[in-house]
Every structure is written in structure tokens, then in C-alpha cells.
């Protein structure tokens, strides 16, 4: 038995301080004979999750990083990768049950640990477990701020010191795009995720929909928040905005992580842009949102409804159309940053999902050699959601250089 003090001993999960991004578990922890698997905290607002499906049976050996279950929250569905190695001894929570973050889902151990010790471990964990208070004072929620005369909605978290990380979502998305990334990075960095103008809860008024105009609005936000410099993490159109800031205001950018960036090649799936804008019914919109992922099961009804709720806001459709018109024409992109990418002074890396159906991953080929490119298998355009632990590790790594 390895229970010490009042808390059951447990291996930290990847989103926790000392988890090492899903890398090898510390030797000392590896020796622990009984290890809990607990409900992860995906995103700052997540308080509970539903275990949709177990993908391993009791008695099977699970490896670190192996997909062991599907978890759904009101915001997202995703596969959960095992934070530990060993034999699955108990499924404590059944399929379809909703439990708070940190609750015991299952137990893994070496095969020779007696049944009675496993039962004791489970019993003690359940006796001692207290869920975090729901909606308490510590709950982090988006807020609205004024920046450059515009209303900007943002979600800010993390410590006050350290290099800030500023997340910029893609076309049609909002700050919740970074749900699986922001909480992880907030352990060490002040993290800001904003809704770009025209999106989410930010102003729907745009001077124009160009990348330059949106980059200027982001710089206004950085000024208003006193962010002299930040590690910019951008996705798709947000990545083109981040790269533009790095080129035009190099002093403001400490590092640049471009996730499936726009502007590095000609093609874009014009179908996606047109369908995203024109479809107003969930059942018609869903196939277009499924173009964003390698595994279509990850698109939940709630995710589709959130997109529709945004599109119904006054001014949202006009803003989307203005941005689409400024940046895309059918199956081609109007933004071109490829020739200038070599001029970026800050450390820069590119992350792409191999199965991206919106912007092809081959756009990352033949770039200047100092730009580190990581292509992740079994992931589509929103690779930062589909493969969050890997992307978070890359963001951290760039921050350390």
C-alpha cells in the first residue's frame, strides 16, 4: 500500500505542474504499486466530466499515453490518454456517469498487487476525495475589456509573472478554442486568450477584415493590458495574425507558435469557409465542423450549437463575411506570408495536423531551416484540441529556448 497522510498517493497528470507534458513519469512514481486515474481538468471552467466509454478492460495492461477512455464535457468530447502505466485493476466509474474533476475513474497497478489492497486503495480514495467547490471564487470566467476603443472578450489566468502567452484563435472560432491548452500553460505563465474582433463576445464592428487590421487590434489589446512582449500562439487565421505582428512589431513577440497557419500556401478548403458561413441548422453545419478534425466523433452537439449561437449574434455574419472576403477567395488564400517568414526574429515553430482538410500540412514544407516544424499524426486542422498534450509540450519547449 502506498497511501500516505490524508491524500491518496497519485501520479501527477500531464496538465499539472510536475507532469512533464506526458513524458516519462519520474522513476520514483513508476515504482508506486497502485496508481489512480482521475477525471482530468480540461479547461479552466471544467468542473465535471462524463466518462462516455472505456476503451480498455480490467486486466489489460495500459501504457503511458495509451487512449483508455472517451470523456465528454459540456464543451468538448475527447479521448483521454493514460497518465500511468500498469494493469487496469478497477473501473470505478461506469460509462455514462458524470463525476467531478479529480474523482477516481479507475485504478492501475502492477499485476501482482493483491485484490484486497486494490480494494483498500479505492475505498480510502473515495473516503478522502473532496471535489473542488463548484463555481467558487476561484472559477475563471471570460470577461470583457476595452482595448483601442473596441470591446474585447478575454479569458485570463495563471500567475502575474513570467512570459505571457497570448492565444489567437482561427476564423469563426473564439477563445474556447484553447480550452485544452490554456489551463495547462497557466501553470507557469500568465495566459490570455481573446476573441478576435468579429468573433465570440468581442465587438462585431470591423474597420476591415484583413489580417493587418486584426493584427492592429491584437496590438491594441497588448497595449491596453501592458503586455510589452508575449509568446504568441495562433491557430490558422490567428497564426497569420501572430506572424504579422512578429514581422511588423518584432519587439512585442518573445516566441511564435503557429498552429496550422494560414498564409503559407495557396490552397484552402473553400467548401469549409462557405459551409461554415452559410449553414444555419446544426445538422447541416456539422459536416463542415467535422472537416476540422481527424476523428469526427470529437464534434459534439454542444460544439455545433456554440458555433450557431455565435453566428446568430447581431453583426456576426457580416463580420465573418468581411473576414472571409478579405482573406480567402474560393479555394485560394489572399494572405501570403511565406516569403517573409524567414525575417521573423523571434523563435518560431510550426505545428500541423497530418490529416488537416482545411489547410494542407504540406504548406509547412521547404521553409527556412531555423523554423522547427512538427507534424502530428491522426490530427486535423484543430490539432491543438485533438492532440493537446503534444501541442502544449511544444509550446512550453519553445518558451524555454
Amino acid at each position, binding site marked *: 500500500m502506498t497511501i500516505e497522510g490524508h491524500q491518496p498517493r497519485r501520479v501527477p497528470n500531464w496538465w499539472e505542474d510536475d507532469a512533464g507534458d506526458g513524458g516519462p513519469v519520474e522513476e520514483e512514481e513508476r515504482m508506486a504499486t497502485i496508481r489512480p486515474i482521475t477525471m482530468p481538468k480540461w479547461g479552466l471552467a471544467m468542473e465535471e466530466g462524463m466518462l462516455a466509454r472505456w476503451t480498455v478492460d480490467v486486466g489489460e495492461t495500459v501504457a503511458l499515453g495509451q487512449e483508455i477512455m472517451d470523456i465528454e464535457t459540456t464543451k468538448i468530447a475527447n479521448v483521454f490518454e493514460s497518465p500511468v502505466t500498469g494493469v487496469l485493476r478497477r473501473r470505478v466509474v461506469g460509462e*455514462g456517469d458524470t463525476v467531478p474533476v479529480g474523482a477516481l475513474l479507475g485504478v492501475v497497478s502492477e499485476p501482482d498487487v493483491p485484490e484486497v489492497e486494490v480494494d483498500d486503495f479505492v475505498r480510502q480514495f473515495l473516503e478522502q476525495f473532496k471535489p473542488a467547490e463548484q463555481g467558487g471564487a476561484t472559477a475563471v470566467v*471570460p470577461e470583457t475589456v476595452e482595448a483601442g476603443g473596441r470591446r474585447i472578450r478575454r479569458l485570463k489566468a495563471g500567475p502575474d509573472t513570467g512570459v505571457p502567452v497570448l492565444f489567437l484563435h482561427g476564423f469563426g472560432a473564439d477563445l474556447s478554442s484553447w480550452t485544452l491548452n490554456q489551463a495547462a500553460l497557466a501553470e507557469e505563465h500568465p495566459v490570455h486568450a481573446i476573441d478576435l474582433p468579429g468573433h465570440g*463576445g468581442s465587438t462585431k464592428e470591423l474597420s476591415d477584415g484583413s489580417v493587418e487590421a486584426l493584427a492592429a487590434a491584437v496590438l491594441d489589446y497588448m497595449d491596453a493590458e501592458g503586455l510589452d512582449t508575449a509568446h504568441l500562439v495562433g491557430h490558422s487565421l490567428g497564426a497569420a495574425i501572430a506572424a504579422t505582428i512578429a514581422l511588423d512589431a518584432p519587439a512585442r513577440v518573445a516566441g511564435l507558435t503557429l498552429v496550422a497557419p494560414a498564409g503559407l500556401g495557396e490552397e484552402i478548403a473553400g467548401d469549409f469557409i462557405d459551409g461554415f458561413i452559410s449553414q*444555419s*441548422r*446544426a*445538422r447541416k453545419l456539422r459536416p463542415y465542423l467535422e472537416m476540422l478534425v481527424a476523428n469526427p466523433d470529437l464534434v459534439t*452537439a454542444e460544439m455545433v450549437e456554440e458555433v450557431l*449561437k455565435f453566428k*446568430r*449574434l*447581431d453583426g456576426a455574419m457580416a463580420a465573418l463575411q468581411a473576414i472571409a472576403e478579405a482573406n480567402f477567395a474560393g479555394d485560394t488564400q489572399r494572405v501570403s506570408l511565406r516569403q517573409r517568414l524567414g525575417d521573423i526574429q523571434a523563435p518560431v515553430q510550426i505545428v500541423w495536423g497530418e490529416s488537416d482538410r482545411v489547410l494542407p500540412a504540406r504548406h509547412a514544407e521547404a521553409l527556412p531551416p531555423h523554423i522547427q516544424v512538427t507534424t502530428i499524426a491522426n490530427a486535423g486542422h484543430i490539432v491543438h484540441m485533438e492532440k493537446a498534450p503534444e501541442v502544449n509540450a511544444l509550446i512550453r519547449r519553445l518558451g524555454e529556448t
Partner: protein
Amino acid sequence: MSKKSYRQAINEALRQEMERDERVIIMGEDISGGTGAAGDQDAWGGPLGVTKGLRPQFGPDRVLDTHLAEISFVGAAAGAALTGLRPVVELMFVDFMGVCFDQILNQTAKFRYMFGGKAVTPLVIRTMYGAGFRAASQHSQCLYPVFTHIPGLKVALPSNAYEAKGLLIQAIRDDDPVIFFEHKAMYDDEMEVPDEPYSIPFGEANVTREGDDVTIVAFGRMVNLANQAADSLAKQGVSCTVVDPRTTSPLDTETILETVEETGRLVVVDEAHPRCGMASDIAGLVAENAFDALEAPIKLVTAPHVPVPFSPALEDIYIPSVAKIEAAVRAAMSHGSKVAAE
């Protein structure tokens, strides 16, 4: 985003549209004052407080407390709509429609058609409906099928606070007359509602649950009961699609037929009476257009063909319940080759 009640969501929609467009006015009995209050006071804000705060903000020229004669003030609102304003008139209880029905049926609904499209009538009639309020037979009916029957009228039935705000804003911006039904037992129901104005298009159903076995089409407050039944049945291994048509006119027949073709079974839940109601209307639609997809008889869950009882015990039995919806779904399941009923 913040939590708002159904009542607050409707109030916010009225306020934001009045701020956006000065042609929007509201009128009705007691919408500002009320019994025992001087006319200018914001004493009641409507019989259930929905319009509270609007008279102090917009003044007596745009918030008109009317006399107790629906035939004249509904007619006045229709005329105002015809001549350039965008009135939102409150017909307190839909049960009172009888006293102003000519204005709605023969005047408002016909203007656009009979004037060859040269006239528009951007009138919204807000009205309360539904049982469960211990308000007896003359204040509890669900008369939306009557209005749905009349070409020229649009009919909206918001099923929660989010839907209420978006559908009411759409109704006010629509150039045709819209009858907007508010279930009086839902005014305190809260949920997250955007602070910004938004509109939900008419004639586009909302699929609130997705399943493989049975399609449940439900209206207004019944959508919530259907969702509860679907969640309960999911735990028993029966997966249901729940369709909230949002508007009965125009009606999103496409979504209803598509989902029935996927599931092969249909249950319709309607708080209105069974004869010439929405339930029989949807059943007819599906029987005519998706007959080959059906694996079981269509099941209807409605109120009985009697007035709403005043006795609380009888009123509770009168209203369709989650248990009755579950039983209807099980009956549909037991007919074919799928899971047997319990």
C-alpha cells in the same frame, strides 16, 4: 453571457429592440401600471412582471398601458403596424383571443395578401399560454394550433430563455404578424443567455437530442419534458432524437421528416388538445411523406379533449408528463424489431 430567466430574456429582447429601432412600441393591459397603481407608475410591468422597467426608460409614448378591450387595442396595434410602427402588443392570456379574433384573423393576417404585397404588418402579439398555473379553464389553454391554421400569421413557441430572446427579436424584425407564445410556467426558468442581441430564424427546427431509435417532436414547454424523457431513456438503452420546431408556422417539415427517416419511429408531444392540434398535424405530415420509413405506429402524447381542470390534482394529470412520454416511446419501441418494451 449571464444567467437569465425566461422573463428577463423577453424583457431584454424588448429593451434592446426598442433601443435599436424607435419604431418599436409596446402596448397592452397593465404592462406598466395595474390595479391600484397610477398610470405612469412602473407598478406591475405586466401581470407577471415581464415588461417591468420599460416605461421608465422609454416613456408613455412608447409604452402604452391600454384599456381592457382587446378588440380595440389589438386593432389599433395592427393599424399602427400598417402605417409604419412596429408594435409589440400583449394579449395577456391567449384565452382572450375570442374578443379580438376578427382583428387577427380577418384583418392583420390578410393585409399583405389582399393588398398584393404592397402592405406589410410588422406586428407582434405576445401572449401567455399553458397549464400548470392553477389558473383554471379560461387562463390555461394552448391555442397555438388555432393561429397556426391561419395563413398570413407566423407562430413562435420558445422552449427556453435562450430561444425566447432570439425568437422575439426575430419576431420584432419580421415584416409579417407574429403570434409569440410564452408559457407562463416557464418565466422563472434560468439559463445562459448572451447579453448581445441575436436572432433565431423562423422555420428552422432545433434538434436538442440526437438518437437512433425514436424521434420525439415537442412544442414549447413540452420540449423540456421530452429532453428529460430522452435523457432517462438513454440510460435504459433507448436513444431518442428530440426536435423543437421553434415555430409552428412556418414549420420546418424537412428536419422532422429527415429525423423520422433516420429513426423510423415518431412520438409527438403537444400540450394542446388532440383534435386538430399540432400532434395530429405532424402525424399527418409524417404519414403522408415518410410512411415507408415508419417501423411502428405514430404515438401522440397530448392533453385530453377536455377543458383545463381547476382541481390541482386533475390539472397535474391533464398535462403531458415525462412518464407519459417515456411510455409512448416504449410503446413505439415494442412494436417493431427493436428493443422490447418493459
